[in-house]
Structures are given as structure tokens and as C-alpha cells.
């Protein structure tokens, strides 16, 4: 779907932080993506290989940490994970629930190398 726009954003964020850290190379990028985000990892990886070519990020490995969607029941207080479809509270059947996890969508960190480590403070 919009994986190209997402991949471009990831590249821009990684390049910005790598530049600020005077990196010569980015080796890894750690992404945190909630289950409710409609992003296909394989598509991001596909675009990544294309658009990261000839940048500091060329060859960097993308790591996807997927956060399962969790709901908190507002009626009985129990918390539960949803696997595929949206489900009412398995304990009491209530539809009064609140999403507590699964909407994460950020770059957590990057791993970088420095060409000349002595010049870096």
C-alpha cells in the first residue's frame, strides 16, 4: 500500500541521525511497528534495497519488532491480545474496550560505524 512512502521516511530519518553522529555507514535499523499498522515487512524490505543504494544506509539490515495489539476491557478490567480480528472481551464478552498497544510506528534506533573513530568525541 503506502510502503514506499514509509520506506522513504525511514531512510530520511536514518540518514539524518547518521549524519548528526558523523557515521560513515549505517549497519542496522531497528523499527517498532504495532500490529494495527497496515505495513507489509517484505514490501518495505523490497523498497529499502532499492532506495538505500548509494547512501550511507546501503546494505543496512532492517529489524522489525512487531508489537501485538492489546485491548483492555473497560467492564471487567482484563487485558487481552487480539490475534487476527477484532474480538470482544473473552472474559466477559463486553464490547467496551480500549486499545492499549499495537499502534506503535517509529524508528527505535540505528547501528552505525565511524570511518575514523578517533576523530569522533
Amino acid at each position, binding site marked *: 500500500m503506502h510502503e514506499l512512502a*514509509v520506506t522513504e521516511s525511514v531512510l530520511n530519518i536514518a540518514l539524518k541521525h547518521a549524519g548528526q553522529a558523523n557515521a560513515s555507514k549505517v549497519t542496522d535499523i531497528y523499527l517498532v511497528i504495532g500490529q494495527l499498522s497496515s505495513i507489509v515487512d517484505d514490501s518495505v524490505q523490497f523498497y529499502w534495497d532499492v532506495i538505500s543504494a548509494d547512501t550511507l544506509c546501503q546494505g543496512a539490515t532492517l529489524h522489525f519488532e512487531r508489537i501485538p495489539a492489546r485491548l483492555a476491557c473497560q467492564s471487567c478490567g482484563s487485558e487481552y491480545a487480539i490475534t487476527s480480528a*477484532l474480538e470482544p472481551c473473552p472474559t466477559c464478552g463486553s464490547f467496551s474496550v480500549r486499545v492499549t498497544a499495537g499502534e506503535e510506528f517509529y524508528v527505535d534506533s540505528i547501528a552505525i560505524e565511524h570511518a575514523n573513530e578517533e576523530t569522533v568525541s
Partner: protein
Amino acid sequence: MTPSRIPVIENILSANDQVAAQNRAALDKAGVFGINLMASPGAGKTSLILETIHAIAPDLRVGVIEGDTAPVTIDADKINEAGMPAVQINTGGDCHLDAVMVSYGLQQLNLDEIDLLIIENVGNLVCPAAFNLGTHANVLIASVPEGDDKPYKYPNIYRNLAVLIINKVDLLPYVRFNMDYFRQGVEMLNPGLMTFPVSCVTHEGIDAWVIWLKEQAASARTK
């Protein structure tokens, strides 16, 4: 040489969010209330806009930004025929509008000459949900023939809504649509969501929706 790990913690779409904030500032400066109207193809986005313009025209000036995936001006032409300014944005095949596209659209509208901005997003229940445009309210149209399972299948788009419009309620006697099941799904994702059941054919429910819009536009003007 060992790589060092540096923290980033940056929202992947933060660049879009920054442009969205600029769009919001431009709307606020002009006292314009902006809505991002989303729906699947054929849910009645353009029909609702035309109904809204028709009902609101004596009181409010409406500007429309039309997002389309192809360079066809069918929708924009209809808005212009109704006497309101419409700007067409061709996404070049993209499945959604983003804040940058909307900023170009805003440049082509004279915001001082409108009170209400309606952005008609690309017909799609997945991608538009991810991109903040800088409008004041996300509005979704769910139409009865699409089926009552849509909140369960497209949960994301129901999460950040200010208003839900259930369109084509005149078809309820003819299609299988369990309103209770539909509303239970909505309630799980967005408790207490303001909902307007309407029909653009019988005009049922349009008044309540237009009253809400007028209230929002009035408070945007006085800010």
C-alpha cells in the same frame, strides 16, 4: 570496528506530521474549519459533499480539495458546478493524500474566501488512515452496501475519527447490514464516536450533520 547503536525514537511519518502542522496553522490563521473526508470508493464522498454544499451554501462558503488517483476532474467539475471552488490533486496513482499534497492544494485556494474546507481523500480504507493532513476533524463515510463488518476488517481508519457518517441508510431494508454488529465494532475502536446516519438520496439525516459542521465552523472563526 564495532558498530555503535544510537537511539532515534522518531515517528516514521514525522516529516508528514510537520507539514500537517503547517497546514493546520494556515487553516487556523484564516479561521477555516477543515475536514478530511475518507471512505471506500463508491461510499458517497462526492454525493455527501454536494449535499452538504447544497444545505450549507446560504450560510457558509465551502472550498473543496479533491484527491484523485488519476487526472480526471469529474468530481471537481461537479463541485464547481455547485458554485464552490474546488482544487483537484492528482496523486499520480498513490493510494492516499499526504500533508504535502494538501499543502499544494491549500496554496491554490484563497482561504480568506472560505469558511469550511472539505478534503476528499482517495477512496481507500487503509492508507489514508496513516497520514495526518492537518485538518481539524477526520470524517469517515461507511455506506450500508459495503457491509457491517468493515470496522472489524479496517480497524485503523476507525481509530482517529471525530465523526462517522453512515450513508445510504435508505438501502437498509434491501441489504444485509446488522446495525448493532456494525456499531459494536465501532464502539470497540472509538468509544462514543459521533455518528450521523444519512441518505444523500432521501436527504435523511443531512440536517444534523450540517448543524454540527456549522457549529464547528463558527468556533473555528472565533478562535
